[in-house]
């Protein structure tokens, strides 16, 4: 093996050099990185210690993203990698890694929101709705059902930064899974202070 994850090649805590006392062992092995890119799904299987499987995602294009404040998750398309705290190279090559900030398609979330709260989200003023969307938003409902939706609408407010993102149809999200290990690119939609922080970082990078 070439890559190994052993400890005995490092110096001691006191700074003293350690003499190697054995050769590289199989349980110390490391494998080449996945470097998951954006693209049509391609996943390779790796047999690991104990006969278990790791799903090494080589290309991914969708993921399950959670909208924390609403408590739902939707599978949605990953459009672009926008920021990576560790390495700008990973942004340039559009590599999907845990904690990368990606841009995600907003339509599944908007559809859920409009179905759940019966309120338009991210629609331009006076835009024409297609007949299906009209049907959901302005359906004739019995009084009891209408009341249910009205109680829900009390808590339907979405923060302005998110609303803007819905208008453009793209949400900023953060990857929370490790695509090279589990083969999935799952994550959560950025909100609140985190969203502010990353938007500032992205802007300062663009400005440079």
């Amino acid at each position, binding site marked *: 093996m070439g890559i190994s994850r052993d400890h005995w090649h*490092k110096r001691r*805590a006191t700074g003293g050099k350690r003499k190697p006392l054995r050769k590289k062992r199989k349980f110390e092995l490391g494998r080449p990185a996945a470097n998951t890119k954006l693209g049509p799904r391609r996943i390779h299987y790796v047999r690991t210690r104990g006969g278990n499987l790791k799903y090494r995602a080589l290309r991914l294009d969708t993921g399950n993203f959670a909208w*924390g404040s*609403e408590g739902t998750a939707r599978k949605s398309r990953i459009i672009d990698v926008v920021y990576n705290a560790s390495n700008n190279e990973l942004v340039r090559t559009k590599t999907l890694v845990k904690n990368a900030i990606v841009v995600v398609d907003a339509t599944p979330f908007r559809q859920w929101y409009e179905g759940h709260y019966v309120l338009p989200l991210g629609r331009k003023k006076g835009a024409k709705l297609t007949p299906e969307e009209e049907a959901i938003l302005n359906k004739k409902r019995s009084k009891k059902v209408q009341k249910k939706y009205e109680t829900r609408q009390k808590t339907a407010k979405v923060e302005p930064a998110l609303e803007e993102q819905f208008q453009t149809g793209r949400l900023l999200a953060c990857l929370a899974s490790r695509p090279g290990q589990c083969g999935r690119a799952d994550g959560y939609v950025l909100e609140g202070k985190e969203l502010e922080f990353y938007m500032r970082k992205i802007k300062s990078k663009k400005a440079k």
Partner: protein
Amino acid sequence: KKTFKGRFVRDVGLGFKAPREAIEGTYIDKKCPFTGNVSIRGRILSGVVVSLKMQRTCIIRRDYLHYVSKYNRYEKRHTNLAAHLSPAFIDIAVGAKVVVGQCRPLSKTVRFNVLRVIKQQKKGSKRFAKF
């Protein structure tokens, strides 16, 4: 649906109270025992803070006596321990007596986390202090 102002503070257990700074502060530290993702389990030890030069960690010195049976006497020995210092402990200085709890490895040498400051600043802290 709440506007998320609530701060995540966890109960460390074993009777250790989260310091006020952990509940009211705004720092983010994933290795803090009160606001982060580490659990305290295993040994609970105490020692004297010897060095605060590292970011968010401190070196703790534990003194003890070792018995030499041939001479029926004791000799002084000490061990140094690296422990993670949460930003919740703002007023800590070299020489403070401190309780640390074992947690999972946080870095190459850090396996402990400071849980409580028993006594602050003592003069001549690098001397042997038996307690």
